């Protein structure tokens, strides 16, 4: 028998624990990415000398380099300068910052999509900058971003497997650990794949439906 059913059943609870860590990373990471991404997008748009170009370059650089290497950098380089967190926190921050660069781009297109008249009207009413952003521009820009947030959430759910390389004990790392200690990789890896699929497939169907329902009006 190639597939050992008893073994598969015995390791399933362990894999579910790993899945729970993956889900935590995904939810917290998306939250971090959504907030940081907004900050980056606004900073770029404000055109502050030095700061805005630096933020722009940072966003482009993060988008142009692999998540795995970024994770290694945070995991191996930062402790050399006395900054060290546990693997979970490091992984969370790395994936959050990585996705914030993508989210910044989404927010940017959302901000650009706000009709020019809205800016002009705010100026005509002499609204202060903070109110223009907070009450006029961002509420309209963010609406178009919400469906994309769902897509990135699913993408991050799958990408978080990369963090197993820096010893974050999520689903993938759990499957690998079970495999190497029992010399049986087939069952844990297949179950891990099925668990990923069981969550991401229905989730992406749901996001697609939401996307169609909340399509931008302008």
């Amino acid at each position, binding site marked *: 028998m*190639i597939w050992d059913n008893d073994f598969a059943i015995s390791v399933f609870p362990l894999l579910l624990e790993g899945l729970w860590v993956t889900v935590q990373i995904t939810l917290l990471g998306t939250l971090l990415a959504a907030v940081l991404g907004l900050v980056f997008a606004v900073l770029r748009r404000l055109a502050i000398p030095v700061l805005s170009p630096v933020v722009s370059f940072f966003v482009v*650089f993060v988008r*142009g*380099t*692999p*998540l*795995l*290497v*970024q994770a*290694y*950098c945070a995991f*191996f*380089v930062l402790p*050399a300068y006395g900054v060290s967190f546990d693997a979970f926190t490091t992984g969370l921050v790395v994936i959050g910052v990585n996705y914030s660069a993508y989210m910044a781009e989404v927010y940017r297109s959302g901000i650009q999509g706000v009709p020019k008249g809205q800016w002009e009207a705010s100026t005509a009413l002499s609204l202060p900058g903070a109110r223009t952003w907070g009450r006029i521009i961002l509420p309209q820009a963010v609406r178009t971003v919400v469906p994309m947030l769902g897509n990135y959430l699913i993408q991050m759910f*799958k*990408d*978080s*497997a*990369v963090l*197993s*390389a820096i010893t974050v004990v999520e689903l*993938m790392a759990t*499957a*690998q650990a079970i*495999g190497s200690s029992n010399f*049986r*990789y*087939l069952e844990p*890896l*297949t179950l*891990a*794949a099925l668990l*990923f*699929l069981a969550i*991401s*497939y229905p989730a*992406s169907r749901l996001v697609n439906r939401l996307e169609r329902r909340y399509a931008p009006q302008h």
Partner: protein
Amino acid sequence: MSAVIGYAPLLWQGLLTTILVTVLSGALCLVVAFAAGLARLSSHRYLRWPAGVFIEVFRGTSLLVQMFWLFFALPFFGIQLHPLTAAVLALGLNEGAYAAEVVRGAIASRAKGQTEACIALGMEPALRLRRVIVPQSIPAMLPPFGNVMVDLLKNTSLVSLVTVTDLTFRAQMIRSTTGQTTAIFLTILVMYFVLSCLLTLLTGWLERRFALDRKAIAAQRTESRLMKVGAA
């Protein structure tokens, strides 16, 4: 910095492996994309369904899981793949599944009149696809294809986890022998960044080259040149 200079030949070899993996899996990705994307649009159920299942499975699970599965789980069926083969297969199939959706989307959004005109002219379905539908869809495919290729390039770093000696693998090796962590990782970050910039430039060039309305673009270019001359 001395570690980086001393180990430059090692990094160079890693870079070549990374480029090799990118090119091989990029080629596989394109083949898979067109095969699965066209099958997805087929009117035959026995072509459409397997393609759909393939796309959803490979998009729905993590690339790392797929790569590990091909490398560690496949031997239980008596198939032991070379690390490079497993890596290229996983990358090509995974990114191919994403690109298949690009192909499907681009072709599905073509103007219907083109297909109808082909039918009216009595073109066979294969000829229709080859001479009209696919060439017209390519400009729409290029920008998302560019994104897929940059993604693929970045994801090649994962092959280091199945012992392919790419740039990331070499960097890890040098890190563990010299301990010069900062210099080595910053160097390869910059190397990856340069590679993805080059890939973006290449796609941009292809986009201009394959733009449907090349005459209009050429006219625009002369106009802007004339304006520059006028301004001077």
